[in-house]
């Protein structure tokens, strides 16, 4: 859109959480122009976090995943193009090219195409019995494979891999969980909480192989039969789940002039945006695909709440309005009896300390922050909790305040 004028035609490519948030925010703020939502998957927008939880376990069927019920969706007044991939953008002519040959003109374009699961060719790509878990089709395929029985090997103990392993154990499927790092989800949780999670996986019968990678996927007649680990051990399996991360879905933007990050130059892949999601030339971006400027570098978040928050912010900015204040980074993960919740900056680099409850009882709040002279956090940069929702909300406020530790007046902080 040109400076000073508001868009009348907004095209959003990507019909998941971020794209939906853009559409809702625009309509909620009174935008009555044309709103087109292009998505390469069939059906109404659905939610992804339950794919590795309730959908995989069989507790839910796909209709339960809809992000909004039909009537809320209809009320948005969106020209929805499901099952239609965008294949290119002409930023000069301001059109999006679609796989069906159609073209879609825009005054403002929002790129919300998310990320795709990485499946390296060396890890059995193309073999049957080996798969990733990113969309509904993947989840249903994995669910059917688990129902057929036989061992599941999960390669990668991040969010998707660890959650899928927990679900499979709940279905009494034998599971081996492999990761080159020393503990599951250690990059997000840090050593202490990741050790608790590792114990839970072992207690539930997972064959946990941390500190080793997978050298190759074994196959017979085009079908996976197991893996060989870096330490040489062979494990037989009926199904191999590759859960080694995701990369932003930007292939369709090659040569478009939309600024794309590279690991070498920018430290991050994805659509390079300013602090409000603007990538220049009437192009905006939100969600997993977007790398927003945080004041010192471009950062990409793959967490669910961030997709909604960025989508809302872009919706406001498209109308020249002040976006809602940015929230804290947030993630959750449900595995066995654990319902982990976290706000702020966590991980292995900061120091960690339990401030309420205890890891041993499984009810706790712990904080992350830069270490003091004794290796304890001296400030609250992040927090994680399980089974203590109210206390966690109180400590969330300490994260917002970047409160020094020990916190003196926590009980008087707003809950």
């Amino acid at each position: 859109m040109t400076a000073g004028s508001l868009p009348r035609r907004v095209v959003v490519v990507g019909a998941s959480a971020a794209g939906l948030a853009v559409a809702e925010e625009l309509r909620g703020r009174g935008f009555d122009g044309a709103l087109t939502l292009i998505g390469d998957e069939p059906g109404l927008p659905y939610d992804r976090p339950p794919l590795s939880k309730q959908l995989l376990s069989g507790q839910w069927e796909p209709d339960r995943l809809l992000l909004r019920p039909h009537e809320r969706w209809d009320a948005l007044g969106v020209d929805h193009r499901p099952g239609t991939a965008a294949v290119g953008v002409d930023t000069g002519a301001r059109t999006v090219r679609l796989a069906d040959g159609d073209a879609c003109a825009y005054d403002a374009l929002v790129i919300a195409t998310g990320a795709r699961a990485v499946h390296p060719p060396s890890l059995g790509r193309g073999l049957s019995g080996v798969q990733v878990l990113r969309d509904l089709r993947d989840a249903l395929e994995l669910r059917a494979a688990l129902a057929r029985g036989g061992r599941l090997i999960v390669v990668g103990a991040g969010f998707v891999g660890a959650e899928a392993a927990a679900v499979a154990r709940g279905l009494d499927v034998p599971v081996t969980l492999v990761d080159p790092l020393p503990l599951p989800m250690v990059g997000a949780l840090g050593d202490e909480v990741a050790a608790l999670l590792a114990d839970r996986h072992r207690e539930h019968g997972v064959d946990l192989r941390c500190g080793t990678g997978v050298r190759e996927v074994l196959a017979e007649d085009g079908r996976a039969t197991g893996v060989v680990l870096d330490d040489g051990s062979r494990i037989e399996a009926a199904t191999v789940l590759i859960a080694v991360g995701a990369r932003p879905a930007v292939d369709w933007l090659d040569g478009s002039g939309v600024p794309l990050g590279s690991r070498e130059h920018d430290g991050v892949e994805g659509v390079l945006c300013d602090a409000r999601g603007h990538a220049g030339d009437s192009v905006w971006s939100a969600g997993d695909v977007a790398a927003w400027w945080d004041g010192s570098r471009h950062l990409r978040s793959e967490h669910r709440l961030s997709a909604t928050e960025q989508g809302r912010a872009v919706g406001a900015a498209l109308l020249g309005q002040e976006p809602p204040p940015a929230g804290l980074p947030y993630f959750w993960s449900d595995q066995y009896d654990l319902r982990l919740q976290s706000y702020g900056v966590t991980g292995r680099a900061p120091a960690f300390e339990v401030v309420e409850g205890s890891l041993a009882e499984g009810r706790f709040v712990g904080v992350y922050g830069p270490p003091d002279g004794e290796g304890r956090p001296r400030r609250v940069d992040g927090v994680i909790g399980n089974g203590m929702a109210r206390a966690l909300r109180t400590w969330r406020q300490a994260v917002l305040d970047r409160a020094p530790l020990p916190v003196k007046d926590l009980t008087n902080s707003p809950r």
Partner: protein
Amino acid sequence: MRIDIDEEKCCGAGQCVLAAPDVFDQRDEDGIVVLLDAAPPAEQFAAVREAAQLCPAAAIVVAED
């Protein structure tokens, strides 16, 4: 306005309590949403809409009259 919540969908993020503390609470042991007022007064409408939009589990459905 009528609010419906789906406890099974709720992931315990607590975003609803932050957005509309007079309408939503959380169970302490698992963080699951507790609906305090299924038909809130008009001054809560904006906060409730925000809660429904922010909910990362899409567990809040708002029906507007």
